[in-house]
Each structure stands twice: as C-alpha cells, then as structure tokens.
C-alpha cells in the first residue's frame, strides 16, 4: 500500500478545481498551474525512485482488497510514463503562457489542461479495466473541450468528427468490458490475467481480445487513424503538442498493457493482427507524410508512423522489443511534443503552414532552425540522440523474432520520417526570405525556452541511454513476464 500513487491524480484535480474559481486572474492561473505541474514532476520522480527500490507499488482504494474494489498499480512502466507525462505537461503549460492567447486563458484553458493530465495519469496508474475506461473518458472529455476551445470554423468541424469517433469507440470499450466481465467475472487486470490464463485464451476470449484491439487502436491511431490528421491540425500548437505527445500514447499504453498482461496467451492470433496493423500503419502513415505539403499534416502523419512502430515492438513481444517499446514510448512522448511545438513555431514565424509559401527563415530564426534540425535527427533515430536506443532495441527484437518484412518496413519508414521532416526544414529555412503578412516574431524566451528545455531532455536521454535503459529494462521485464505484477497486486 502506497498512498503516493494517487497523488498524480489528486494534485492536478485539486489544481483544476481551484483554477476554475480563479477565472478572473490570469496571472494567478498561470502561477498556480505552473507550480502544480512542477509539483507533479517531483511526485512522479519520487514514485519512480520508490518503484526502483521496492518493486511494484499498489494502492487499494478504500482498503478493498483485490480482486474487489479498484486497485492502483505503479509498476516501472506506469511510473516512467507518469514521469514523462508530467514533464511534457509542465513544458506545455509554460509554452502555453506565451502562445495560447488571453482569450483562451480566460475560458478555462488551464483547468482543462490539468483535467486532461488527471485522465492521462489515471490511465497509466489504474489496475482495473473499468477504471481505465473512466480515466479514458476523463481524458477524452477534457480533450473535446480543449480541441474546440476558441471555436473557429475549422475547430468546430473537426471536433464534431473527433467527438463522434470517440463516442462510438467508448461504447465499444464498455461492450468489450461487458463481454470480458461476463466470461471471467473479473475487472482487476491482475485477476483477469490469472482468470484468462486459467480458462485458456481461445474462442470467445480471442474475440474479446480483438474487440479491445479495435477499441484501443481507435484511440491510439493504430491503423484506425483516419480521424487523427484532421483533428490534430485544428487546435493551436500547444494543444496539438499535448495531444500528439500524450493522448495517442495512452492508447498505445493500453494496448501494451492488455496484450502483455491479460491477453498474452495466444500471440499467434492477437499479436499477428497487431503486427499486420503496425506494418500497415507505418506504410500508410509514410504515404501521408510524403503526400502532403503543409506542416500540420506532415507532422500528424509522423505521429501515426511512430504509433505503428511501437505497435511493431509489441507484436514482436520478446525481451529486446518490449524493452524497446518502453524506451521508445518515453522518447516519443518527449520528442513528439518538441517536434510539434517547433512545427507550430515555424508556422508562426512563416505566417503559413504551406511549404510552398515559406522560406528563408534561417536568417532571422537561426536558433529555431537548428533546434528543429536536431529534433529531426532525434525523431528519425540518429545516434546519439534519444530516438536511437529504442529503435535499435525494437529492430533487434524484430530480427530476433524473425519478423523480417516488418523490420524492413520499419527501417524504410525511418527514412521517410527523415525525408519528410527534412523537406519541412529545407522549405522553411533555406532559400530566399519571404515576408508574409501574418508572420509573428517567435524569438521570445517564453516560446523558445520550453522547447529548449525539451530539447535538453532529448539530448540527455540520448547520451544517458544506458541510464534510461536501466529503468526501462525493469519495465520491459514486467511486460515480458507479468507474474511479478500479478503477485504484487494479489498478494495481500
């Protein structure tokens, strides 16, 4: 029992409630959300240290011992992801202060952002599948409000589709939980793990597993990503970065968790599906990234590609690839946030998102240019930046598992990632300077400092790969053999 586990939810929750009452004072809202985000990082660090020292941490709500009641479980994977979430969250809070605009700040931008963090952290920490649904909904409802906040025509149009897709997938989620409860009579994920193994996964349980696969794929953007490029290009930069870094990753996490802990028994059915879906996602995402000529779309298709890549690591499901999944997830949360923030800054500096209408930014925005260049290298997985270690592990795992075709696809799409982003770099920063009427000066500390902070983490994670790996291998071990997780939850 460790009460620390509930703090990543409670701190943002109370903060957001307080923020609602501080509507009149934007300054106070900024200070409070900044302070609470930093407190969140401190809590997440202490959880990681705790888990590293004492193994899997659990918390039974109201003292209901499992399998009854809701259990919160902090294993290494959850702890690391919460840490990454709080870090990305705080940088985006600081970025928002300079970029989101007073109008949005007055209309509950900061409280909504904190509510989103409640949902994300809750999804990572919960050990109960219905509670996972509830945390998903907390996160999604805040995301509905954040994506439409501002109410431009584009936002309204895309939000409608985003909300409808998610309402349908949430209905499927509850249906899947209902079937699972009907078959096993359990909701606690550790208990489910035992019961599914006992009953022997096959027949109806495989159908349920695939239903969960559809639900989480819709949220993660694994093959079913058709809503993503449109929806993520509607809101302002800070919100897109938050979504790209966190929301899709929660879906990926849910896939990783359920298909290692609960439905790990029949990889020849479920994991083959995941593998094919991952391959198709990477290929189609690569087509998208090559086909479009505006920055938001290219970046959004890059989100899709990385989801496919992580899912490939899950499909290979051996020790290397699962460790790679953890390392790459952590890298991708930080690096995608950075990439999307910088992309947004380029659009501001150029006054347009279209590649054909921009150019010559290097003269005035040299720092932005070099940061974007370094980020491209990190995202493409070039050593010594942070993308390399995860990519190496997943590819090694893929080769070990003899998934040669998928490994080839994943390496080929790395080149597409590099090429598609380089194209942005060349179009935006090279060539003659073009003055666009709507260009805004981005050389402000409030905008560049948060990006520089994230950049620093990307570099540090790259150079300290060995150190990151030490934590991630613990998380990978739990994924490979969930018995430690199960024992930690069900022992008392």
């Amino acid at each position, binding site marked *: 029992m460790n009460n620390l586990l509930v703090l990543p939810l409670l701190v943002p929750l109370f903060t957001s409630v307080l923020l609602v009452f501080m509507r009149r004072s934007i300054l106070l809202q900024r200070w409070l959300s900044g302070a609470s985000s930093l407190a969140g990082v401190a809590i997440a660090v202490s959880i990681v240290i705790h888990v590293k020292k004492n193994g899997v941490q659990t918390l039974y709500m109201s003292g209901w011992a499992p399998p009854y009641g809701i259990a919160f479980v902090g294993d290494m994977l959850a702890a690391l992801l919460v840490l990454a979430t709080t870090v990305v969250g705080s940088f985006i809070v600081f970025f928002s202060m300079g970029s989101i605009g007073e109008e949005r700040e007055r209309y509950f931008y900061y409280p909504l952002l904190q509510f989103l963090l409640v949902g994300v952290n809750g999804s990572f920490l919960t050990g109960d599948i*219905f509670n996972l*649904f*509830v945390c998903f*909904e907390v996160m999604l*409802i805040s995301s*509905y*409000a954040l994506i*439409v906040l501002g*109410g*431009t*025509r*584009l936002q*309204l*149009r895309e*939000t*409608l*589709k985003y*909300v*409808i897709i998610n*309402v*349908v997938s*949430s*209905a499927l989620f*509850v*249906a899947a*939980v*209902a*079937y699972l*409860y*009907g078959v096993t009579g359990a*909701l606690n994920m550790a208990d489910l793990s035992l019961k599914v193994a006992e009953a022997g996964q096959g027949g109806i349980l495989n159908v349920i597993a695939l239903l969960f696969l559809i639900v989480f794929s819709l949220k993660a953007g694994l093959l079913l990503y058709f809503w993503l490029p*449109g929806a993520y*290009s509607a809101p302002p930069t800070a919100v897109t970065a938050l979504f790209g870094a966190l929301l899709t990753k929660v879906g990926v996490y849910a896939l990783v968790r359920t298909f290692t802990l609960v439905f790990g028994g029949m990889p020849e059915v479920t994991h083959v599906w995941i593998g094919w879906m991952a391959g198709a996602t990477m290929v189609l995402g690569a087509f998208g990234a090559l086909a479009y000529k*505006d920055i*938001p779309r290219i970046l959004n298709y890059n989100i899709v590609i990385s989801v496919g890549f992580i899912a490939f690591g899950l499909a290979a499901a051996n020790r290397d690839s699962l460790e790679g999944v953890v390392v790459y997830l952590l890298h991708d949360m930080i690096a995608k946030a950075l990439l999307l923030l910088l992309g947004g800054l380029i659009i501001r500096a150029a006054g347009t*998102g279209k590649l054909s209408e921009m150019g010559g930014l290097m003269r005035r925005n040299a720092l932005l240019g070099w940061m974007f260049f370094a980020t491209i290298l990190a995202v493409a997985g070039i050593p010594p930046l942070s993308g390399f270690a995860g990519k190496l592990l997943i590819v090694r795992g893929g080769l070990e598992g003899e998934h040669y075709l998928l490994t080839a696809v994943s390496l080929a799409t790395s080149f597409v990632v590099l090429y598609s982003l380089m194209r942005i770099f060349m179009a935006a920063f090279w060539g003659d300077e073009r003055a666009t009427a709507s260009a805004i000066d981005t050389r402000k500390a409030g905008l560049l400092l948060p990006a520089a902070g994230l950049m620093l983490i990307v570099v540090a994670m790259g150079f300290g790969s060995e150190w990151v790996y030490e934590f991630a291998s613990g998380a990978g071990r739990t994924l490979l053999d969930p018995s430690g997780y199960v024992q930690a939850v069900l022992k008392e």
Partner: protein
Amino acid sequence: MELYMSLAIGVLFTVGIYLILSKSLLRIVLGSSFLSHGVHLLLLTMSRLKTGAPPLLDEKAEAYVDPLPQALILTSIVISFGVTSFLLVLAYKAYKKLGTDDMEELRGNENE
C-alpha cells in the same frame, strides 16, 4: 429472459448504428445515445440476469444479485449523459457557425 434482452440490445445497436451512419448531425447524436443504451443493457445482461434475488446483504446470503454491473452502468450512464449533452451543445454551436448540419458538407480536407 436473456433472449429477449439480447434481442432488445440487438435492436438498440441496429438503430444506433443506422442513425450514426446518416448525414444529419442530430440523428448522429441520437444514434450515439441509442448505442450507449444498448451497451448498458449489454453490461446488465452479461452479468447474468437473476430475478427475485435481493442485493448482497450479508456473508451467508445464498442467492444475490451481482451489485458490480449496476455500479458500472451507473458510472457509464453519467459519462454518456455528460458526453451527449456536450455533443448537443457542440452540434448547436457548429450549426450556428458553419450553417449546416449535413456531415457530407463538413468533410473538407482544406484548412480554412
């Protein structure tokens, strides 16, 4: 009893999906709430229907109704209620601003 419930759920799902696939925004919203009703009934049915049994009162009870699905359904109803009301407001705002409730006209790949 289970059979009738299954049929009812099937009808709700069919109606919900039919409405969601239509073009009019209001129908889609209605369809989504039919879908969530269907899902809630499914949750109730999947935990096995027992008529006439009391709720769990003490440790020695011989027959009792599983209380868990009802708690789940209650949670799920609250969530779908909130989402539906949000969706209705969103649909209204979108209709006012975009001047149409036809999803066919709201496709748009171009950025405005």
